[in-house]
């Protein structure tokens, strides 16, 4: 009997997993878990859903029977039953058991995900996430480098995170990789993620992250990206970034002109084009652009090509309402835009 229920339960789990994983995109949906953390969470979601479906079925069955059998047919007065101890005990005990079945794995998983051991190791991949209105900064303290908007990490390894916010509260969430954790203004929160290489491949090596805490008008558009690559490729990227301690020399004339504009118009006062994390956080007002040319998206939401980049530079407000770049520089002419775009797109650290 017991084996039978368990068997049925696991069948239910399998069916549900099958149905649910049809939902959403592999790079975004929490129903398509792409790593250990997300999988742990997904299993708990499945277990709880199974219990809940069971509860709903029981209640609905009773409900339907009652509604069919006991509709008023005549004017008879039914017996005024006071209650039933036996029944009351049953429907107190069974939910308690169901709750326990859910509570134990929950506690276990909570403690497991809270376990940050390994973070202190010298070769651990540690990332400091700093959220600002409406962009993300990723600092690699062990490597001494900074990047923005797109996080680059190796697959099949634990990645440890320190999260904080510089202005208001945000929340760092990459659904396919794991649940959200708030970036507070008061403290540093920690968690870890891990990405499976085959899942990464299915998702095109690029996972979509969202800001999950209301932070102002452009909260909806405060997307981040996680580029999950193999260890080799990651090392290559790190090497490239580390090498970019000096501004890169633009090659074409247009790009050169772009660089000049970039410096003259004051862009440089907010945006670094070198990767070192030597400036203090408060002075890093805008995203670091060292490897901008390699990013898939501009400000997390526009395809990174000349067209879209120019759209952003021309009028950031139309892309992200209330962003902190609008109105901080003189209006740009079409030529200036061209030059800037050329320059920015040429910023790359790997070949």
């Amino acid at each position, binding site marked *: 009997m017991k084996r039978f229920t368990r068997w049925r339960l696991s069948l239910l789990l399998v069916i549900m997993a099958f149905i649910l994983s049809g939902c959403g995109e592999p790079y975004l949906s929490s129903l398509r878990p792409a790593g250990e953390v997300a999988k*742990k969470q997904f299993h708990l979601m499945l277990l709880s859903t199974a219990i809940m479906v069971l509860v709903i079925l029981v209640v609905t069955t009773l409900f339907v029977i009652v509604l069919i059998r*006991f509709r008023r*047919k005549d004017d008879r007065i039914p017996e005024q*039953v006071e209650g039933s101890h036996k029944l009351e005990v049953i429907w107190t005990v069974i939910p308690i058991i169901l709750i326990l079945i*859910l509570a134990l794995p929950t506690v276990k998983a909570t403690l497991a995900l809270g376990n940050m051991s390994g973070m202190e190791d010298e070769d651990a991949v540690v990332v400091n996430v700093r959220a600002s209105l409406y962009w993300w900064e990723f600092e690699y303290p062990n490597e001494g480098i900074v990047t923005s908007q797109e996080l680059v990490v190796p697959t099949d390894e634990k990645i440890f995170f320190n999260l904080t916010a510089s202005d208001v509260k945000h*929340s760092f969430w990459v659904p396919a990789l794991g649940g959200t954790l708030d970036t507070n203004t008061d403290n540093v929160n920690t968690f870890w993620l891990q990405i499976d290489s085959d899942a990464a491949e299915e998702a095109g090596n690029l996972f*979509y992250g969202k800001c999950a805490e209301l932070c102002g008008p452009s909260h909806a558009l405060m997307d981040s990206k996680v580029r999950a690559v193999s260890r080799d490729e990651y090392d290559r990227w790190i090497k490239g970034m580390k090498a970019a301690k000096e501004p890169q020399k633009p090659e074409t004339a247009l790009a050169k002109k772009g660089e000049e504009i970039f410096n003259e118009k004051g862009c440089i006062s907010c945006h670094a084009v070198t990767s070192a994390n030597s400036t203090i956080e408060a002075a890093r007002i805008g995203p670091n652009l060292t490897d901008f040319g390699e990013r898939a998206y501009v400000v997390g939401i526009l395809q990174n090509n000349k067209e879209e980049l120019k759209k952003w530079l021309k009028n950031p407000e139309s892309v992200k309402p209330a962003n902190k770049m609008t109105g901080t520089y003189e209006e740009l002419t079409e030529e200036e835009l061209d030059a800037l775009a050329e320059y920015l797109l040429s910023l790359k650290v790997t070949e």
Partner: protein
Amino acid sequence: MNSYAQKRGFLATLWDYLTTVDHKKIAILYLVAGGFFFVLGGIEALLIRVQLAVPNNDFMSADMFNQVMTMHGTTMIFLAAMPLLFALMNAVLPLQIGARDVAFPFINALGFWLFLFGGIFLNLSWFLGGAPDAGWTSYASLSLASEGKRIDFYTLGLQISGFGTLMAGINFIVTIINMRTTGMTYMRMPMFTWTTFVACSLILFAFPPLTISIFFLIFDRLFGAQFFNVDMGGNTIIWEHLFWIFGHPEVYILVLPAFGIFSEVISTFSRKRLFGYASMVFATVLIGFLGFMVWAHHMFTTGLGPIANAIFAVATMAIAVPTGIKIFNWLLTMWGGSIKLTTPMLYAVAFIPSFVIGGVTGIMNAASVADYQYHDTYFVVGHFHYVILGGVVFAVLAGLHFYWPKMFGTMLNETLGKITFWLFLIGFHLTFFVQHFLGLMGMPRRTFTFLEGQGLETGNYISSIGSVLMAVASVILVINIIITSVKNKKVGNDPWGDGRTLEWSISSPPPYYNFKQLPLVRSIDAYWHEKMEGRKEMPPAEPLGDIHMPNPSFIPFMISFGLFIAAFGAMYRPDYSWGLPVLIGGLVITFGSMLVRSLKDDLGTYIKKEELDDDKGVKA
């Protein structure tokens, strides 16, 4: 001449309502004001759904969306759901326990006016520089960063209406403890009375933390305090804790009275006494108790650490047990009964599966690790609309249809009522069921738009269609109310025919003194008991005598008005020199009115026994 008379009649009625301390009239005031705010909040909900119907929509700006979304949540919770429940409590609770009045008629009126002025203040923000835009939770870092006066409207408005709620709560607790008629023991009280009792106790303990946290925010924004300013040593997590120490009990403040209404409706239309009455009472108290131990489940992702998360996860799950007891008791009440599917009963019946779906998604949220994936997504939006609409709004609609004859002496149209019900039910499930999946698929809540090509289009579109159905249903309800009021066909004491509790033993609407002689209660479901014994009326518990009634008073209005003025002063004080005098002036009005109240003896009036004997002398 004729119109002059009419006008005078109107003014007299207006004055009557402005000064009334009669719980039945206060009920009507709550109903009208709460209904207005429900429509307002509903329209805001529709705007949200229009904006989100298609990706990259530019129907509203991002800034506007945040205001609409914030005001929708705030309005619905504080200005619609709670007042509508207070309306029903005021309308029937004193009748249910066989009382002539509430314990503090004056404070009852004061509670209403405070709520109304708070609500008006909050909504004036739309015309004075923009509405609050930091979500109904108004988390501190964002609400400090918000520019202009928006958040100040939120804090000051909620503070005023919060005082009103607290007073209403104390009033009902005392009424229930002290004003029960002879024989109405605790374990004979109708379920709605019990749930009101527990809900009001929750109000008593949950509103002070809200009051304090709002004070902190007011002080920070307007008076230079540093509670939430991290640079000065402040801590924004304090706001989160205080808000949720209030906020979680708040959801049970909403749902417990709803449970009470369903208990009444289900047992009435099943013609059976409530199954497991004692365990229902026990479960209600237990839910209230546990409600204070679980607030941090809204903060699983704040970073409190795994131990705290685990403790609060398990504590939260425990609430499934008492709630389950209630669900099964309702089912067993219907089991073996003689069920008549009137409009109120339809809502009560539909409530059961709808609320269970919402409740079990609540338990899913409670699994902390899984909640890391649900938190601040549309999954949570789905969860709480299921419990709030399936629980609270259905209860208000059920109660409205059920008690309409008792409040106004005429029945709402059943056919229209059923049409409303079906449209609302379908619209509700259509709107919110898909939202769970949207959340799981990666859609955060409080987003003014979503991008194309991320798999979120279909779900949002369906959801928007559903909300239109709910709107249509609401419009039909309004039409129903208008038609019914125009026809105004009078009904007798017990229009549903199956009334069980004391309120059905007196005329509809009841005379202003409620009971000529206080009834003697000899059993649970007292009126049903007497009916079964073949009597038409309740036996009296006292000889016919003079009846003491409180005097009407304009002071509650003035006290509330003073705070309303003072709030403007407080808000504009940092920018304009007239702010401070206005602040002081408002407070003088308030405290002056309070002083007048306490110095002027108010002994009330007596209705003479002779007047009661001769029924003509007493107008209902």
